[in-house]
């Protein structure tokens, strides 16, 4: 009896790079939906809300959401790996306090800023250590460090605030690029955004982040250093949060222990809205940035239209709920269609 084989003639196989045409790949995504929503909001607001389309509105809008924009960058990575960091706002507060206290104590502001960054990185490292080495769940750990870092911030400064920052720095924080109305701090943000985008989409490290989110076991078996990657991400989050804290302090000219309380929820809401899945493994930065801008723009437009700030909260919440529920519903519809059509698209692989 001879062996059973497929045809011995080797057919040279060719593969398409992509299974769907470019327009489908780009347009039929969560990110495109968010970007479209953003554009619609901008359009509608420019037409119907007085003063919305003026440069000064954009200035204040961007100045306001800069901390969220900054922190959303590393937070995206963290959530893609399937973890979460609730302590970011407390790190903002802590770095603000460190900056203020050291500066008040005589240290030049540049040095104090570096110290604040180091404190932020340290906070991230503690999170990272507890999560990767001790093996604790990130939700619980960062609830704990949320309290701890905020507590340290408030403890260090009490109820007082440090306000003697030089005009130079305060103005720098609020300065704009020429006549455009775009704040100069946007340059800082753009640089970071590009760096993070490159890191996520064009490096091994970034590939590893996605792999960890989709299948930590397979990632480990392929040589991805899972623990080290997660640790680095938490350190990055801590550092960027500290950076946001420095900006926040200088912009308002006041270092307080309770600065930016509650910010973590805005960041996470924006990241999730921007298409990053809470289950991990999916998402990209452009969607997240659009998500932050969407929430910020909506808030700004509503404020100008004299709608009270609570409505923006309701809308943010509704958007958040709608975005995750719709993903779930779409997935369910997809499975049903596959079952009925009996195609191989979503079928479980043949049992072993």
């Amino acid at each position, binding site marked *: *009896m*001879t*062996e*059973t*084989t*497929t045809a011995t003639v*080797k*057919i*040279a*196989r*060719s*593969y*398409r*790079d*992509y*299974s769907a045409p470019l327009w489908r790949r780009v347009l039929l995504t969560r990110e495109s939906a968010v970007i479209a929503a953003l554009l619609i909001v901008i359009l509608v607001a420019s037409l119907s809300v007085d003063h919305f389309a003026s440069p000064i509105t954009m200035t204040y809008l961007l100045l306001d959401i800069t901390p969220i924009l900054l922190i959303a960058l590393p937070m995206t990575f963290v959530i893609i790996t399937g973890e979460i960091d609730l302590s970011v706002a407390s790190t903002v507060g802590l770095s603000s306090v460190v900056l203020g206290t050291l500066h008040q104590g005589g240290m030049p502001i540049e040095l104090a800023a570096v110290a604040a960054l180091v404190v932020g990185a340290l906070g991230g490292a503690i999170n990272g250590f507890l999560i990767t080495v001790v093996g604790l769940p990130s939700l619980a750990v960062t609830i704990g460090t949320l309290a701890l870092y905020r507590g340290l911030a408030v403890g260090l400064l009490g109820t007082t605030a440090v306000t003697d920052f030089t005009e130079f720095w305060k103005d720098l924080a609020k300065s704009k690029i020429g006549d455009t109305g775009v704040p100069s701090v946007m340059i800082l943000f753009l640089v970071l955004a590009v760096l993070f985008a*490159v890191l996520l989409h*064009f*490096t*091994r490290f970034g*590939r590893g982040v*996605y*792999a960890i989110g*989709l*299948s930590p*076991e*397979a*990632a*480990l*078996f*392929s*040589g991805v*250093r899972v623990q080290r990657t997660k640790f680095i991400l938490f350190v990055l989050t801590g550092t960027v949060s500290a950076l946001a804290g420095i900006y926040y302090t200088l912009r308002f000219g006041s270092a307080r222990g309770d600065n930016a309380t509650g910010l973590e929820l805005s960041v996470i809401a924006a990241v999730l809205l921007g298409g990053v899945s809470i289950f991990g*493994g999916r998402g990209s930065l452009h969607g997240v940035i659009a998500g932050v801008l969407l929430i910020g723009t909506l808030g700004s437009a509503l404020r100008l239209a004299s709608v009270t700030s609570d409505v923006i909260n309701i809308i943010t919440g509704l958007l958040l709920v709608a975005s995750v529920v719709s993903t779930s519903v779409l997935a369910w519809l997809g499975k049903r269609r*596959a079952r009925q059509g*009996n*195609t*191989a*698209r*979503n*079928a*479980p*692989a*043949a*049992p*072993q």
Partner: protein
Amino acid sequence: MTISPPAVGHAALELRGVSKSFGSVVALSSGSLRLENNSIHALIGENGAGKSTIVKIIAGLYQRDSGEFLLDGESCDFSSTAQSKAAGIAVIYQEPTLFPDLSVTENIFMGRQPTRSLGRIDRRLMREEAVGLFRRLGVRIDPDRPTLGLSIADQQIIEIAKAISLDARVLVMDEPTAALSGVEVERLFAVARSLRDEGRALMFISHRFDEVFDLCDTVTVMRDGEYIATSPIAETTVDELVRRMVGRDVTNLFPKEVAPLGDDVLVVKNLSQPGVFHDVDFTVRAGEIVALAGLVGAGRSEIARAVFGVDPYSTGTVAINGKRVPRRNPGASMQLGLALVPEDRRKQGLVLESSVARNTTMAIQRTLSRFGLLLSSRENEAARQWASRLEVKTAALDTEVGTLSGGNQQKVVLAKWLATKPSVLIIDEPTRGIDVGTKAEVHRLLSELAGTGLAILMISSELPEVLGMADRVLVVREGRITADIARADATAESVMLAATQSSPAPTKEAVR
């Protein structure tokens, strides 16, 4: 205690011509089975023969596409596991799923706890019943302890206790002995026999012929999703069963060509990890295919994972081409030329939701990067090259790898590792869950690779594969290497002997 027999003429459970497909993949084309009361019925077949599909249909996890499913003569259609349970069917899996935080007693009675007034759970009564169940089974397990940390053997007993408390008439045991030691197997068999004597119908799925001949009275063979034959154990032999399982003369299936053997490439010395494996010593030369044979649960995959660096080991050394491989560091192992195609393709070998291109290039990202940057165009190029070399069947490179067939998935995993141009390839269950055609392709590929000087360590539970492909067979039993058999001396008997330290299945044995 005996349970009332069914109406005369009806088998406890019967399947006739059952089929099941998933999209274009046919898992079962015609499954047939007839379980009688007072009997333990073995179901055997190679991986991919359709056994687990049958089990899942019986359990209510899948719905059959066609054919008849009769329970006690009546047709049934279970749309959920709860329904099949209610109908009196219990399935004991290899990996029982219990609630780790809850006590043994609660696990048995969850959802059905005995109650007193006000709906209060009667814990004393519940505990008494649990103790009674264990007494009936002849086992001693502390009913109050949490199930966390219990051995698989004990967990299976608890599952059986659950089944009995539900008064299951049909018990299916899916490869229950895979992770059990000799003593635990004996205990399980004693329990099974007593259940049989009470009038229940049992089904026993296993790869181990000695167990099948020891425990069962009837055996059904399946192959490639089809029912082949049923016979009483007393009237058949291992050879006949193997022939039915494989469907062809075994020796010609695996075309291992003779290859010139080179130097020692992989040298493992004194590898030990307490509780898992001990004093593991072996070498693999360039061009050699060394097989690690043994029963499932013997520790082979653990050894492989430790060598590669995913699992820890406490003592011993691993060296490739003379260089020490640091422990617990897969990245370093990869750099030194080691590759591992893991046992669990879907969870360890692939990122199922990622594309073919990404999965294929996952291990060579470093070489594809320029100045630290990785472009998907380069990934696609490399993926195209390797996927076509292995003839992976997919429409596009960005197809999710989870949608490919088992055989093609395995090819992607192979492509991923071959792309790293390794010196040593460890491959764990190379053809598990793969169709016959792809199986032959994989074997031919491995043979070719050995011919080019690759050192291959192959773990396999399929004896024919081991005997056909290996230059040497290392047999592992309970974490130790008990035999090093050269190709010429390797036979089913010699390997099984070393793997179980008991004589191979007798050809005739009185049914107990």
